[in-house]
């Protein structure tokens, strides 16, 4: 047996700072997890068609921004809270967390206005912000993104835009997984002090860019091969359900209240 195999060795790698790799890995995983979690979403908002939901949310946001009466905003908030209370707890927390952060932020920004005597906007504007952010967030948390994209098609959003949105979502996941692997590789190969990590990181970014070009070309070719002409057709037939009717009725009620309040 050779001599060097018998001598005991003590190798302790020099401490190295790799927080930034860990952080990039975590944020990458978080992003991919968020998109993938969508696949587990089974039901739409109690069976309300996404087309109806997108349109009504849009209407709601417009009404909220137009109105000057606090009571109307309050009614909209009541409606949204009613929808929220029927959602699973996890989604409620996610939606409300964003809404509250944004509302508090708006409130702080508006504080100077209160010192100049404008007390009305101090309550009205944060309430409006809360209502619109909650409305949009409910939509984003209940529906799968591909369902929402499909709904956009009904509103005559150009094909190109939908194409870009659709591909972007898919490729965020694919490229994300790809770069995640490279980050793992970098982490594993950096034993001891590795001063060239920053250079490798830019290498990862560069590789990702090149890879995305190759993938895009392959995708385009394969889509053309399969007969894609650039137009999106929604396959599902329009089915008007009971939930749609209830949802539309409730929104119609809100619209009626808006008209009633604006008159009086």
């Amino acid at each position, binding site marked *: 047996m050779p001599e060097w195999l018998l001598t005991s060795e003590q190798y302790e790698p020099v401490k190295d700072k790799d927080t930034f790799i860990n952080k990039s890995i975590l944020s990458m995983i978080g992003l991919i997890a968020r998109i993938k979690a969508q696949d587990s979403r089974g039901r739409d908002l109690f069976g309300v068609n996404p087309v109806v939901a997108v349109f009504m949310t849009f209407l709601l946001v417009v009404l909220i921004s137009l109105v000057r*009466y*606090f*009571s109307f905003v*309050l*009614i909209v*908030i*009541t409606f949204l*809270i*009613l929808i*929220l*209370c029927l959602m699973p*707890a*996890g989604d*409620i*927390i996610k939606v*409300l967390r964003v809404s509250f952060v944004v509302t508090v932020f708006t409130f702080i920004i508006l504080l100077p206005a209160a010192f100049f005597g404008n007390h009305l906007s101090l309550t009205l504007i944060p309430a409006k912000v809360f209502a619109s952010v909650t409305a949009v967030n409910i939509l984003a948390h209940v529906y799968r993104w591909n369902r929402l994209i499909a709904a956009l098609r009904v509103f005559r959003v150009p094909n190109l835009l939908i194409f870009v949105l659709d591909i972007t979502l898919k490729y965020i996941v694919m490229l994300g997984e790809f770069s995640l692997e490279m980050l793992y590789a970098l982490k594993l190969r950096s034993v001891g002090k590795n001063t060239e990590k920053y250079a490798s990181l830019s290498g990862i970014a560069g590789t990702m860019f090149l890879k995305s070009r190759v993938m895009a070309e392959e995708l385009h070719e394969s889509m053309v091969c399969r007969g894609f002409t650039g137009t999106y057709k929604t396959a599902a037939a329009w089915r008007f359900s009971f939930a749609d009717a209830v949802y539309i009725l409730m929104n119609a009620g809100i619209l009626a*209240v808006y008209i*009633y*309040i604006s008159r*009086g």
Partner: protein
Amino acid sequence: MHIPDNYLSPATCVVMAAAAVPVVAVSIKKVREEISQAKMPLLGIGAAFSFLTMMFNVPLPGGTTGHAVGGTLIAILLGPYSACISVAVALIIQALLFGDGGILALGANIFNMAIVLPFAGYFIYKLIRDRFGSGKGEIVGAAVGSYVGLNAAALLTAVEFGLQPLLFQTAAGQPLYCPYPLSVSIPAMMIPHLLVAGVVEAVFTVFIYSFIKRVSPGMIYEGKTTRTKAIYGLLAALICLTPLGLLAAGTAWGEWGADEINTVLSGGTMLGFVPQGMQNGFNFNAILPDYAITGLPEIAGYIISAVLGVAILIIAFKILAAFKKNKANV
């Protein structure tokens, strides 16, 4: 029975809060230990029931109004500790959002309606049920328990009101806060509650209890079917019925605003003055004062308030349940 601000002296409020806080703390601890994560949202539904029940004002003899509380019902369904938490949260929402019950008086209100009421009601229910067995004993126990519970709370409220003029006076001998002594407040509170509000509470309790027992027994007994849809349906029906609470004209005894109290009749004489402590006392502006929305008819405001209150209570307890799960996992 919601004591508004400035009816009780700050000292009384502090004493009542000091009495309420430990009981609520023990209840939270008990609920954490005993109620499973899956059952936590039921507390929210219980709180929602109580919230709605309190919106049904019934006219009482003497030109005032009163309402049931439903605390005994929750205590029977989920246990007295859960009832304490549920009613307390409902009271907090009422005080903060709807200006029903004072902020400073919150401790007193919680003590009367969220502690004395469900605990008294539950133990009487238990006593009767154990004596007469389940079945009829349950129904009778629920009726008697809720009746006694509500009246115990009303009596306590009356005593708190009645002690004010004895304890807190100006140099000239005028009462600083609630102007009515025990000899006025106890009969004024107790007669209507014994005659009407207590009966309403008992009817409410028995009706909802037997409905839940028939439709969704899982809420009462472990391992039976729970039909949340039926429960939500009942809540929705109650919300639609809340405007009935508006039929009762007049303000509940002891809930007058500072502008009203001057002209309140008691024993045929008008009060004729506004107590000093009320004139320049603590004032809190709720978002939806008296369950009304400016610019909308009273009924619409009432229904929207009911929806908002119920939804907020359900969300609050759903979130609490979610946090409980996170803690258990760590």
